[in-house]
């Protein structure tokens, strides 16, 4: 133990003597660890953001889209097939027990105008349940009601961005908004939700009763999709299955044919969305890990130079009684110290870089503790692994040869 302590002292002293070199050697490890930490932090931050946004879609949400991803070998788009009807939505509401909210949905986009201002935005036709399903309260005014839907009223709830564009500095409640030249009355302004994971402004939207949208704007009878809210997370799978059975029956689909609709749960949407970001994160972390190994090779290189350079010193130490093990320990500790200090600085740099990215670029980051531990272990292992060969080489030197070395 005392000899280990002595070896530690010698190693530290040797590193201090060559501060510049020690720092440059460490730089490889610092960059490697910092890169790992930063990419993982970014990935983790993005993942957390996506999860938050998936959650903002509402709780226990099941989406039923018209059309199927593959139908008879031909791919068709989401919501394009025109196979879902209002009656389907009503049947789901009526016949499936665990359903607490249903919103038939149609979508279009177009010019909206108020006074002299105009704006291009997305128009959603929804039921009154939509606001509770998506947990999206109004900041001003009231949401439209079941009555508005049944009466096909020309009322609109507008997003914060639309409100800003059309009614800057005014109270939009009670004002007229012309949607594709059809006049609607603004009854509410939605609370701001910000951007979603694809960078879209979720507040750039106008929500009107689906009946009004279908009759007054689109003139169509089919739905794009149906948003269904289940009573609890434990019945989502069951509800999903029941919806599928109900719709197959209603659409008279024989068992040998594919669905003409798609039922997706929020879980699946979340998985699909995070999958891509996780793949990206793992790829980047892999690249960063390679740089960690490169840093380790840097350490090995410098340690080999150091062993050659200090051959005489090794000879002297052996002559006065250092065993091979003592010499090996000295160089191993030097390598591990280099990589450990490098690792610690790398963590600081990585966390700092993540924080800076959040601060200056607004990118969400989160540094998982597990990954910090992993990088600490990695850098220590790199030190031992790449320090071992030079250290062993030093310990096997012949004292006579080493003393004679110029």
């Amino acid at each position: 133990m005392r000899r280990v302590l002595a070896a530690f002292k010698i190693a530290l002293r040797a590193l201090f003597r060559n501060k510049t070199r020690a720092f440059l050697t460490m730089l490889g490890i610092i960059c490697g660890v910092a890169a790992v930490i930063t990419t993982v932090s970014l990935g983790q931050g993005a993942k957390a953001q996506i999860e938050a946004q998936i959650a903002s879609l509402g709780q226990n949400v099941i989406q039923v889209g018209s059309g199927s991803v593959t139908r008879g070998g031909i791919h068709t788009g989401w919501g394009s097939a025109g196979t879902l009807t209002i009656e389907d939505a009503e049947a789901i509401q009526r016949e499936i027990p665990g359903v607490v909210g249903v919103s038939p949905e149609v979508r279009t986009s177009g010019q909206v105008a108020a006074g002299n201002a105009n704006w291009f935005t997305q128009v959603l036709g929804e039921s009154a349940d939509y606001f509770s399903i998506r947990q999206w309260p109004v900041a001003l005014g009231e949401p439209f009601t079941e009555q508005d839907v049944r009466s096909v009223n020309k009322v609109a709830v507008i997003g914060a961005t639309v409100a800003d564009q059309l009614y800057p500095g005014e109270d939009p409640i009670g004002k007229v908004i012309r949607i594709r030249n059809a006049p609607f009355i603004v009854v509410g302004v939605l609370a701001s939700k910000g951007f979603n994971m694809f960078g879209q402004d979720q507040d750039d939207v106008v929500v009107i009763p689906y009946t009004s949208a279908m009759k007054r704007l689109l003139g169509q009878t089919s739905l794009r999709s149906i948003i269904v809210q289940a009573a609890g997370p434990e019945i989502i799978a069951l509800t999903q299955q029941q919806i599928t059975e109900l719709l197959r029956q209603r659409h008279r689909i024989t068992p040998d044919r594919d669905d003409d609709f798609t039922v997706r749960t929020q879980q699946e949407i979340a998985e699909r969305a995070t999958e891509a970001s996780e793949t990206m994160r793992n790829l980047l972390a892999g690249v960063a890990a390679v740089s960690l190994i490169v840093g380790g090779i840097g350490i090995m290189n410098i340690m080999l130079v150091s062993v050659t350079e200090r051959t005489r010193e090794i000879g002297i130490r052996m002559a006065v009684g250092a065993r091979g093990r003592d010499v090996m320990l000295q160089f191993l500790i030097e390598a591990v110290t280099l990589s450990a200090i490098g690792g610690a600085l790398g963590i600081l740099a990585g966390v700092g870089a993540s924080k800076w990215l959040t601060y200056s670029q607004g990118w969400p980051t989160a540094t998982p503790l597990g990954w910090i531990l992993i990088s600490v272990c990695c850098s220590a292992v790199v030190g031992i692994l790449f320090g071992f060969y030079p250290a062993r080489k030093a310990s096997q030197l012949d004292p006579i040869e080493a003393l004679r070395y110029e």
Partner: protein
Amino acid sequence: METNAVIRLEDIHKVYQTGEVEVHAVRGVSLEIRRGEFVAIMGASGSGKSTLMNIIGCLDRSTRGRYLLDGTDVSELDRDELADIRNQKIGFVFQGFNLLSRTTALENAELPMLYTHRRLSGREQREHALKALELVGLAKRAHHHPNQLSGGQQQRVAIARALVNDPALLLADEPTGNLDSQTSIEIMGVFQRLNDQGITIVMVTHELDIAHYTKRNVIMRDGRIVQDVQVEKRLKADEELERLRREQQAVQLAP
């Protein structure tokens, strides 16, 4: 008689294998050196004296023969055991001083204690090293680095380092080889003082006048001892230095 021998070599052989050629560096040396002796091993280069020195110093092992150092048979020890023997029983002084650069004289003197099994606190190590430096008259320069010291002073640091573990034997390999004649005599003076205190010294040299400061000369040729004599007209370093000083004064006084 047996217990009094610090070194006892019995028919030592050393054969090097360099490529396909076998070099027979030492061919059957038997030698006994007792406690308190001051021996110079002499010979031309290639005579095998350095090889013998390496064997005596436990840096190398003989191919054949038996070597008892301070009563321990070291001919069969492995690398680690030899390292321990070097640490505990032998102090080395080299021709090129071999101090660690950018390390103070004191730290250099402390070096062998880093590798001892004895438990010494940092303060005790420091005290031991300082005492050794005092012994060679260099206590005032304890915190100087080797490049701030003259050749003679560096060699004194090396001697202090050799003494710090109280070895049974002080081995010097051409200790005056890199020094001018006056400094050489000063260093021999240090050795003589240490020898007077009872320390056994063996040195290798090819300088005849340096050998005259020792008590016994062993002369080697072609791997064998050809002569082993006690020094009759032994030079005293102090007297020689005094004489040198007077001569120099005379030269300066002369017009």
